[in-house]
């Protein structure tokens, strides 16, 4: 079975993840009911003549891709695959409001052009002069997962090095509207999100990119063994059955998984099935959480993969990530179980290489 070796990562999130030395020590809490990404000074990563047109999603994506490529010291990539649930929402909204406010007059093309979902992927292709495979997935909580599934197939089809990433941005207006629609809740810092008994998420944003290689090199940080998505599983038992089958495919059982990163969002309804699974995970593996760090968004699983890579690299599960008090003696296998709105579920398995 094809595996993918991660040789570079770049992550922009509400945490200080852009700093290569940061390891979950200082944690930024949500700003009430949402998170903003901690953005770098983009001049270091993007030329000014490009920067002037870019919305935040594009800047975050291009900068995170740049970090990953630099770390991997990749001269070129054979494919660029991005995932984003909402795409370049800032530019979409800018064009939309200008159109509505000015009764369709005096509109300029820049924000329309940049509003298309494939802008991040195509900007990276333009910058890298990459004429090869270029795909953008836009399916809710499967957007990033699809990039990994595609990359695994491309390796079998003969590609060697692939850039994948997940990007999401929000705007002040979009936060206001979602708040009005009752989708959020203030983070109660006294209760961890996996114990939440109330409805609502903390909306967030960010960009996480990875350089994947078909073969192991001295740059390899961790290995992606497999990825599977589940659309609307009916019960937690269904998920568990599929999980056992997924692990079996990789000749593992739950007891072999040293850390399981679970996508609790803090919304008691969406998290219901994960909550039912938690005691089983706790018994066999060591449970951990990531959305209390990155918030909830379509491609939060890309942040989770960045966390998993870090855990494997450092061989340590910080208290700020762990759900249980257990301390794994080693971190050989990390499993991510994500859920989005209780509809899109996914498993991603990473291993030490």
């Amino acid at each position, binding site marked *: 079975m094809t595996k993918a070796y991660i040789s570079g990562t770049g992550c922009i999130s509400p945490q200080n993840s852009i700093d290569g030395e940061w390891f979950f020590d200082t944690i930024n809490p949500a700003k009430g009911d949402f998170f903003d990404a901690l953005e770098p000074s983009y001049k270091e990563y993007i030329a000014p003549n490009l920067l002037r047109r870019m919305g935040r999603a594009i800047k975050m994506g291009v900068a995170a891709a740049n970090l990953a490529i630099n770390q991997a010291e990749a001269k070129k990539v054979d494919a*660029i695959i991005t995932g984003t*649930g*909402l*795409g370049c929402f800032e530019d*979409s909204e800018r*064009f*939309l*409001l200008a*159109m*509505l406010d000015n*009764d*369709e*007059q005096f*509109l*300029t*093309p820049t924000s*329309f*052009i*940049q*509003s*298309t*979902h*494939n*802008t991040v*992927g*195509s*900007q990276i*292709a*333009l910058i*890298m*002069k*990459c*004429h090869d*495979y*270029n*795909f*953008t*997935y*836009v*399916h*809710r909580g*499967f*957007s990033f997962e*699809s990039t990994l*599934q*595609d990359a695994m*197939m491309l390796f*079998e*089809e003969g590609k060697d090095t692939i850039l994948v990433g997940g990007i999401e941005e929000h705007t002040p*207006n979009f936060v*206001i*509207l*979602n708040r*009005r*629609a009752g*989708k959020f809740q203030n983070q109660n810092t006294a209760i961890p999100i996996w114990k939440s008994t109330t409805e609502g998420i903390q909306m967030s944003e960010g960009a996480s990119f990875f350089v994947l290689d078909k073969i192991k090199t001295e740059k390899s940080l961790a290995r992606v063994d497999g990825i599977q*998505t589940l*659309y609307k599983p009916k019960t937690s038992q269904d998920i568990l059955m599929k999980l056992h089958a997924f692990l079996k495919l990789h000749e593992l059982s739950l007891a072999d998984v040293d850390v399981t990163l679970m996508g609790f969002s803090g919304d008691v309804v969406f998290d219901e099935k994960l909550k039912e699974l938690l005691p089983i995970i706790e018994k066999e593996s060591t449970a951990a959480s990531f959305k209390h760090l990155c918030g909830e968004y*379509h491609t939060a699983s890309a942040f989770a993969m960045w966390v998993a890579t870090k855990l494997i690299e450092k061989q340590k599960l910080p208290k700020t990530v762990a759900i249980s008090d257990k301390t794994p003696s080693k971190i050989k296998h990390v499993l991510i179980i994500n859920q989005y709105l209780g*509809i899109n579920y996914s498993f991603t398995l990473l291993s030490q290489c």
Partner: protein
Amino acid sequence: MSQRVYITGLGMISAIGNNVPESFLSLSQSRTGIGKINHLTTRYKDEFLAGEIKLSNEALADLVKDSNPALNRNSYIAMLAAKEAVMNSGIDTNDGLRTGVISSTTVAGMSKTELYYKEMFVKDDHLNVLDTHDCGDSTERIADYLGNVDYVTTISTACSSAANAIMLGCRMIKHGQLDRVVVGGVDALSKFTFNGFNTLMILDREWCKPFDENRKGLNLGEGAAFVVIEGENALNLRKGKALAEVVGYANANDAYHQTASSPEGYGATLAIQQALAMSGLKPSQIDYINMHGTGTPNNDLSESMATKAVFGDQVPKFSSTKAFTGHTLAAAASIEAVISVLSLQNNMIFPNLNFTTPIAEMNLIPETKLVNTPLTTILSNSFGFGGNCSSLLFKKAS
């Protein structure tokens, strides 16, 4: 590992018809669906033409027999076309085989979002629009409408989107991950897209004239088209009938400019060459090309250059069918896949309407009348913003 992949069902709704038989009739009678704007609300209603589906949202809701107020035009037409494709193929999603839905869209729920976006700040009535704005919405609506779907994903690569959905479906079958996939694309016309293309100054105020020296730009259209693709194993198991085989596909990037195509059509050339290489067919074995041919000065010149680069002086018969449907963006490649299969089934080349004068430096002349001729292989091109270039190669089912 590689099993062959066949198209076994067609579904389509666009300006030229609400289903495949209606579309075929329009195509074979050279009847365009592009005309005066009726449904879209825009101040430019009388200045431009568009390829609108001739049904109101209420009429579409009746056709899908679903009164869920959360549905929007994008979902309605996607559900209709996907259902038609499944019915046409005769597959049963309850038979235990693995079925996927891979759709694509560019503006997704925007046609509804733009109506209520400002109101949502002050009134609560339409806040549910937030749930249906994104690209994944219509895909999940299709999956739930069909029932028992194991896998869903959505692609957005501008105007090449549906070609990539078809390509991904084929690859997932070849990799043994799915047995059959409903693949295609959808884009309902919105004021947002209309104004966007208008700012780019690439809309023709009259009927578009693909590959004509005096072409001024494109006409926007709307539509949804899906095809059912099946691996030969699944097809043989149910003794189903293949309509066509997908024998080649490729995805490349022009990496030249955010919106414009390179003058020499580099990305397009790569996509065509790679699709040919995969199929093992020589350029001389291609019977017909369904071009991207939007009617913009830039695309048609660049695509002509790419065609010459690949085919030299032996350019096969070709036409763009955009002057029938308008440019339907994410749906364009799947609409043209359906049209290509209709061409193979009926041995007919549908004409490139509105053409009179060849592009001076190219001297490429499309088919301008309906041509009855034996067809075995068809190349279909789709290119998009962001340099996304995709080509598909279909072959008559043997």
